[in-house]
């Protein structure tokens, strides 16, 4: 390699001395020639004229002394050479650093973007989400009343603008032949998009007056829907679409990635009449506000509390006890993800600790192993500063290689994570699409890892150069007194590594078992060969029309080849949707807490139970005879949970419940269905005949003979044949529905698993390093033992015993930490106790086995060496 600042070869001392001697000789000759003296006299004269030869020789030498930059280059070359001589250390240290930096940066970046900054394109810091809660009646409620919106708009000075949104579902009627689409949308106050400063791909936000009745015939389309439904055609702007049968002019298309407040397809204006704006009792709005210049969230909270008190005194009946609470915008999604954030934060911190500790350990082992070399170099005139600088350069090389690789790992990790992330996650975490390697996180982890590397490379180096040469050299391979300290430090580091590994490993095991339980768990419905979709009839469809639609669809699907059974229900299990209804039991006093009885309201067709594989455990199901005729009995089937809770000691069959003042007779009890997923508690469920309780919105479930995905088009066609205006949305199989529900849990398990594997590797490598080094230091001692009759087995068990001791201490500490971490995990665990002893024992056993295996390699090597060889070395 050619260095740009290469200099000619430095002349040797001999060379300089000879040159000066020659000069003196020539000068003496001249002196003699001009008769100023002869022999010794001439030589003395020449010498006098020349000056102090030693000083001058030193001046000459000084000319050649390398400059700082050259020394650095020299150190660099030297460092690369010496690192290449010990590839095991270089690779391990580099990869450990890279894994630590990469994993923690990637997860921090993901967490920050997904959870803390879900709306990266909006001025998140200036936006608040205002929830309306009542500590007594509804401590975790979010939605606010229109009257609260009005009050905030009129009175709040800390908010420069206030807007609101309401989720709704509509059908977008076809352009020409295109079938109707069931779309998710938000009704928003016309100012909402300017309030959040949302960018548009086409057009602009709603006109100011779009919120008044008669002026609301406008719509805004999301970027994704623009592309999936309208092929990204620019002609969509100012064209008219039919939403729920009413024409609306498209005034704008939101910019790519704007998913505010959630990813939906269309936005329409929220119309608030004078009567609406004074509605205190119904709370259905998500209120958003923009902080006035200079105002903080805390200011807004104080003011909102005052406004809440005013509202409570003005209309005590509806608003007493209710408080408006402005929260940072990221809270809108974070309530679902706060636990995730904490779990990931702990996992990241543990990985960072493990990486730093391991790097420190490796550096220590390496410097200790080079004590002889350092002592020798110090003895040969290497100054301490120079030696330290040399070690530092070497450590820097490793640190930079690890950092570069770590940045690569981070970028790759983020890429991989956003690819394995289920698409449904973007609904909860719109920031996911914008995840980049976070500069602050990277800077922090880089700085931390490099600092640790340098510190642990340097500290022992300084000490090593201070130890008297004789002690080190005479110590042979045995190691001097100062080394005992290094060994102890390394033992502590190994213990830390092992305990961190135990914590992460047991967390990973718990999460994996939990995710597996969910997959294997029985939600109570058929998951295979079921296709599900949302259906919506045009708004204004009469009850008779809805009834007719269900019965015709039923008949048509019965005759569709490949369909085993098909039925409709209000909401599909595992879909995250509910229809709540309030019911009462005649003759029964209200509940002690005053709350009404609630249930999930399922309006089903006769074949629903068969299509979904839900057993009837008592009485009968809903059948075709349950009609709307005035003389037919209104019947209901309830779930087992409701039966045993509402009538704990009696048979519910034949009893009556009242919904909206209409009595319904219970004719059957169905097996329980985990409607909200296995991790959700069971709730009351009431099944009624769709014919007796008709609705224009429903979910269709089809049990198919073959691959349900292949039945998509035939079933869509059947729906369109019954009523071409029926909108179809969210077509997916029950397995996909299940995956969407479970995948976040797999995601946590996967991340923590990856971390655990990394940390276990790091710990095992660290343990190997310490044991191997210890063995190499004790070769003489072991040789003496063998010479005195110890067998190889004795030697191996003697050395391996040390490894087991270190690991055991780590395991004990780690188990404590694991139990603490498991308490945090409990929130996302399903079917596994957080402090599961089986898991802990398994994990501890695994780690002890791994560490003994790691220790056995150097032990075996030590035992194979012939004692004579070690002793005479």
């Amino acid at each position: 390699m050619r260095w740009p600042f290469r200099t000619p070869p430095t002349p040797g001392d001999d060379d300089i001395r000879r040159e000066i001697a020659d000069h003196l000789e020539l000068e003496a000759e001249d002196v003699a020639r001009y008769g100023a003296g002869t022999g010794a006299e001439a030589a003395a004269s020449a010498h006098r004229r020349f000056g102090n030869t030693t000083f001058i020789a030193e001046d000459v030498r000084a000319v050649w002394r390398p400059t700082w930059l050259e020394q650095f280059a020299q150190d660099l070359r030297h460092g690369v050479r010496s690192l290449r001589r010990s590839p095991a250390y270089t690779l391990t240290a580099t990869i450990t650093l890279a894994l630590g930096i990469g994993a923690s940066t990637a997860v921090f970046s993901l967490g920050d973007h997904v959870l803390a900054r879900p709306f990266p394109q909006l001025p998140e810091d200036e936006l608040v989400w205002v929830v309306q809660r009542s500590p007594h009646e509804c401590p975790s409620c979010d939605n606010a009343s229109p009257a609260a919106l009005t009050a905030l708009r009129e009175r709040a000075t800390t908010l420069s603008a206030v807007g609101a949104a309401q989720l709704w579902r509509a059908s977008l009627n076809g352009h020409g032949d295109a079938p109707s689409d069931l779309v998710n949308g938000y009704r928003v106050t016309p100012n909402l998009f300017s309030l959040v400063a949302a960018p548009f791909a086409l057009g602009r936000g709603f006109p100011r007056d779009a919120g008044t009745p008669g002026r609301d015939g406008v719509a805004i389309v999301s970027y994704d829907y623009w592309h999936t439904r309208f092929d990204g055609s620019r002609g969509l702007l100012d064209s008219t679409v039919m939403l729920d049968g009413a024409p609306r002019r498209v005034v704008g298309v939101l910019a790519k990635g704007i998913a505010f407040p959630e990813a939906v397809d269309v936005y329409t204006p929220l119309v608030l009449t004078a009567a609406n704006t004074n509605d205190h009792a119904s709370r259905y709005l998500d209120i958003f506000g923009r902080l006035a210049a200079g105002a903080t969230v805390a200011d807004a909270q104080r003011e909102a509390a005052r406004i809440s008190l005013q509202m409570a005194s003005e209309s005590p009946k509806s608003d007493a006890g209710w408080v408006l609470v402005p929260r940072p915008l990221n809270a809108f999604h974070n309530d679902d993800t706060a636990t995730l954030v904490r779990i990931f934060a702990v996992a990241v911190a543990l990985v960072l600790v493990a990486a730093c500790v391991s790097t420190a350990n490796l550096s220590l082992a390496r410097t200790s192993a080079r004590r002889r070399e350092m002592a020798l170099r110090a003895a040969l005139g290497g100054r301490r500063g120079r030696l330290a600088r040399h070690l530092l350069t070497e450590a820097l090389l490793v640190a930079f290689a690890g950092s570069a690789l770590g940045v690569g790992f981070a970028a790759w990790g983020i890429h991989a994570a956003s690819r394995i992330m289920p698409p449904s996650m973007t609904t909860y975490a719109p920031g996911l699409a914008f995840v980049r390697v976070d500069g602050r996180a990277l800077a922090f982890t880089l700085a931390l890892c490099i600092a640790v590397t340098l510190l642990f490379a340097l500290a022992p180096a300084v000490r090593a150069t201070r130890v008297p040469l004789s002690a080190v050299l005479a110590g042979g391979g045995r190691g001097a007194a100062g080394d005992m300290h290094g060994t102890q430090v390394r033992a502590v580091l190994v213990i830390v590594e092992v305990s961190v590994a135990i914590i992460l490993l047991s967390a990973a095991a718990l999460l994996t078992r939990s995710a597996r339980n969910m997959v294997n768990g029985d939600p109570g419905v058929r998951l295979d060969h079921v296709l599900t979709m949302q259906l919506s009839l045009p708004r204004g469809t009469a009850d008779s029309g809805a009834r007719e639609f269900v019965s015709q669809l039923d008949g048509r699907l019965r005759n569709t080849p490949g369909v085993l059974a098909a039925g409709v229900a209000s909401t599909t299990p595992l879909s995250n949707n509910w229809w709540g209804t309030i019911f009462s039991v005649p003759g029964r006093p209200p509940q002690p807490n005053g709350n009404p009885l609630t249930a999930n309201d399922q309006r089903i067709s006769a074949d629903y139970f068969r299509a979904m594989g839900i057993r009837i455990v008592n009485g009968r199901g809903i059948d075709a005879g349950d009609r709307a005729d005035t003389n037919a009995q209104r019947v209901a089937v309830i779930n087992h949970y409701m039966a045993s809770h509402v009538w704990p000691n009696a048979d519910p069959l034949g009893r009556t419940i009242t919904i909206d003042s209409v009595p319904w007779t219970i004719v059957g009890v169905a097996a329980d269905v985990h409607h909200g997923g296995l991790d959700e508690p069971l709730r009351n469920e009431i099944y009624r005949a769709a014919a007796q309780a008709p609705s224009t919105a429903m979910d269709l479930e089809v049990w198919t003979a073959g691959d349900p995905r292949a039945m998509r088009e035939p079933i869509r066609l059947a729906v369109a044949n019954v009523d071409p205006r029926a909108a179809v949305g969210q077509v997916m199989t029950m397995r996909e529905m299940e995956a969407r529900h479970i995948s976040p849990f797999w995601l946590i398990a996967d991340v923590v698993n990856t971390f655990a594997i990394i940390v276990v590797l790091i710990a095992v490598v660290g343990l190997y390093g310490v044991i191997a080094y210890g063995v190499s230091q004790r070769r003489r001692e072991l040789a003496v033992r063998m010479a005195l009759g110890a067998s190889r087995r004795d030697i191996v068990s003697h050395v391996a015993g040390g490894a087991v001791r270190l690991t055991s201490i780590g395991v004990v500490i780690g188990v404590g930490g694991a139990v603490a971490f498991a308490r945090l995990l409990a929130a996302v665990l399903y079917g596994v106790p957080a402090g599961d002893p089986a898991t802990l024992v398994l994990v501890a056993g695994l780690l002890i086995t791994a560490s003994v295996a790691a220790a056995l390699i150097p032990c075996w090597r030590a035992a194979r060496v012939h004692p004579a060889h070690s002793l005479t070395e």
Partner: protein
Amino acid sequence: MPAPRNQIELLQGTLDMLILKTLLFGPAHGHGIAKHIQQTTREVLVVEHGSLYPALHRLERNGWIASRWQTPPGRAREFKFYRLTAAGRRQLRTQESRWDALVRAIGRVMQPAPEV
């Protein structure tokens, strides 16, 4: 040995230029260079031997001159000879023009031209 009155101390940096100039006529060893400067200036400039060798090595390190042990005619053993490199030639030209400028400038101060 005190310097005789008619001798002049070398200006800082001029020694380098004088060495390069001397080597323009061919390779020489340190003693030869010193002697040449002294003789050419009729003993007005006396090269301080203590500064000659560090200067030579500095020039070599900068790549302006190169050294080689070789046997001069009439001698039985090797002496360290210095020769000018291409870079040294360029350096000499720069230093010469700078020196000219300096001399002219000083001259203008010391002997102002009569006003026309």
